């Protein structure tokens, strides 16, 4: 019982980075930009989050600066894929490697590595935190865990229940049609990339500032890639992505609990499971191909207006 309770209480902590990063990716991919750079942007967010926390000691400022930094770096990616129309897969991979090198370098140069942060913890949610069982799992988390739910609600409302969201999706489904309707494909995609990067940066900062409470080079450990897979798994739907993030978070939270209970399970086996699930979903979607399956119609395609048909 104790093991299960601890496991469930720890799961949101593991799920939040997946959820936020996946949401960021969904924003950008719904505009038709395939973003493989999440792993790199998460590292940027994680590093800057820790750095700002060391410098200013205020969580709000740290998270804000981390989001800003990830957005700034994403401008580089945006320039490559929107202005120069570089292949989005290659630009995304290059972004990851660039960020991996840059964050390792800065972390060492600025002496931010292995500097533990203090004074950040759970924020009990009033009296509800004292409720038996549920209180510990749901209402004794840190602030970002609580905020994740409204962020998802807002993002879903934006995508499905706003004119701007409609336009953003149009740009991702059929940029020719969006252009003919007078929308600027480039600007919408830029906005989506930058906003998405901010969420991905937040996911990274969450890991370093709230979970591990320190910066180590390469600390995201492939979670950005899992988020990329998660988006495919969720067929570009925010709610399914949140459910998937919870699933993956639960799987990951299981490792230390099982280890503590004395069950020997190779760590890599557990780390592999999200990918196995993602591959399974892709196979299933490919086999059950029927009409529209959520994948943005123009995902990964650069848009050139004056291309002769």
């Amino acid at each position, binding site marked *: 019982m104790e093991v299960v309770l601890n496991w469930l209480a720890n799961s949101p902590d593991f799920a939040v980075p997946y959820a936020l990063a996946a949401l960021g990716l969904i924003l950008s991919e719904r505009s038709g930009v395939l973003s493989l750079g999440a792993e790199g942007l998460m590292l940027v967010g994680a590093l800057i989050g820790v750095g700002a926390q060391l410098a200013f000691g205020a969580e709000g400022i740290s998270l804000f600066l981390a989001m800003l930094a990830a957005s700034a770096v994403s401008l580089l990616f945006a320039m490559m894929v929107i202005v120069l129309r570089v292949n989005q897969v290659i630009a995304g991979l290059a972004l990851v490697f660039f960020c991996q090198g840059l964050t390792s370098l800065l972390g060492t140069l600025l002496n931010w590595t292995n500097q533990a942060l203090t004074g950040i913890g759970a924020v009990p949610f009033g009296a509800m935190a004292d409720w038996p069982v549920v209180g510990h799992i749901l209402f004794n988390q840190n602030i970002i865990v609580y905020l994740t739910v409204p962020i998802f609600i807002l993002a879903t409302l934006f995508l499905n*229940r*706003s*004119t701007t969201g*409609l*336009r953003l*999706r*149009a740009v991702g*489904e*059929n940029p*020719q*049609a*969006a*252009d*003919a*309707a*007078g*929308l*600027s494909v480039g600007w919408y995609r830029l906005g989506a990339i930058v906003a998405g990067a901010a969420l991905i940066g937040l996911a990274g900062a969450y890991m370093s500032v709230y979970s591990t409470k320190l910066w180590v080079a390469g600390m995201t450990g492939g979670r950005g890639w899992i988020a990329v897979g998660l988006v495919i798994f969720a067929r570009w739907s925010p709610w399914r992505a949140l459910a998937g993030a919870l699933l993956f978070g639960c799987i990951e939270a299981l490792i230390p609990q099982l280890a503590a209970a004395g069950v020997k399970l190779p760590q890599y086996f557990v780390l592999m499971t999200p990918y196995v699930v993602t591959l399974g979903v892709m196979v299933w979607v490919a086999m059950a191909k029927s*009409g*529209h399956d959520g994948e943005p*119609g123009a995902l990964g395609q650069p848009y050139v*207006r*004056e291309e*002769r*048909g």
Partner: protein
Amino acid sequence: MPVALQLTGIRKTFDGFVALDNAAFSAEWGEVHALLGENGAGKSSLMNIAAGLYAPEAGQMFLDDNPVRLAGPSDAARHHIGMVHQHFKLVRPFTAAENILLGNPISREDGSYRSKLRRMETAIRETAAELGFELDPTKRVAQLSVAEQQRVEILKVLLAGAKILILDEPAAVLTDQESERLLSTVAQLARRGSAVILVTHKMADVKTYADRVTVMRGGRTIDTVDPKVTQAAELVRLTVGEAITSPKRESRTPGEVRLGVRELKSSGAGIALNGVNLQVRAGEIYGLAGVGGNGQGELANAIMGLPALLDGSMELEGLGDLKAASTSERREMQIATIPADRYGLALAGGLSVAENFGIGQVHAGRYGSFWKLAKSKMETDAKEAVKAFDVQGVRSIRQKAALLSGGNAQKLVISREFSKAPKLVLAHSPSRGLDVRASAEVHGRLLAARDAGAAVLLISEDLDEVMSLADRIGVMVRGRIVAEFPQPASRQEIGQAMVDHA
């Protein structure tokens, strides 16, 4: 009365290819103005400039006699210009209302998204009723028929406030009745004061609906005339330019049946092929006419061996079952195919001219075994073929095939396919997008193949092409061949067959 839209001295190039050169056009309020010309004459490019989608390199545009420079499609919409594109610009997973809301001024007004959508749905129903047709604005575009999708496009520009309405080849995707309805609807809009520009290559539509017609050829404006007083023959002369002698088709006695198709059905979804029966004899051209989308593409694919799910039979004389044959077996049966999608199915744009030529016989081992490619032999062969088939614009045999113009790319396909005397030739819209001269050359090759004893199946939406080449003409409607006509066939009867069974 000021001139609604005027374009003068327009020039536009695409990667060095001059699409428009000193083109001019003007349309007045209250008229249906047809823009007539062959494929590639520059009609669509010129209208894309008027709609703000392309930026001209030279020339001026006037609206109500005032010079304007459009920054983009939204700028055009502000100036009350709306264009219905030939290839619909619709977001398929969106509903009709969502599609129309995208660029509409309503979307910029206050109010919740839901209320805007409701207002848009009401506006769509009202305007549709005014124009005399029905449209469910809550249906997804992917579920709408082509004619309904076109209505969405028209409503989109009208609800955005368009007074200058440009329709690019609106009849191309419609049945005759549908296009009749559509054209009388837009004519009615012109009566109410709008300027309607009808881009077309159909002479009949020009004659019936247009108040004036401007003819374009080779990226230039040739003349603007009154279609009511100008003879059709004169319009054709203006469109085509100097009379090109079409290849002579001498009648000859056809041989025995080469290709026999019986009750061919596609067993997948839809009614793509619905029991096709046809026979093509050696030494004859069988022309298959019909409005596009009635199963012609599926039939061509079936003969090329692309879909697997088929009922019925397809036999090639002396060589057996064609239906079960693999693509390489089809090659051994000496079937030459000229698919409609030149770059999708016939050529690999990124490979060289020589490689594209040689690829057909690599499998048969003509250019070495599986590990050694006899490149020089392939290049020698390709050089000879390029010369024999008069493929122009080949600076080097190693240049990419994508650099060839449409006509020359088609000639390259033909040179490859005809390099081994074929027994059966399948040509699907072989002159689509080609200029008159290139078309004439392609037609000459088809006739030569026929005279050499091949059975030729010509599938084309261009009735003129079918009429001038075919020895027998079949009409395809809804996946069936509904009528067959021996030459000399009557154009009216063929057209009637297309309509009667639609």
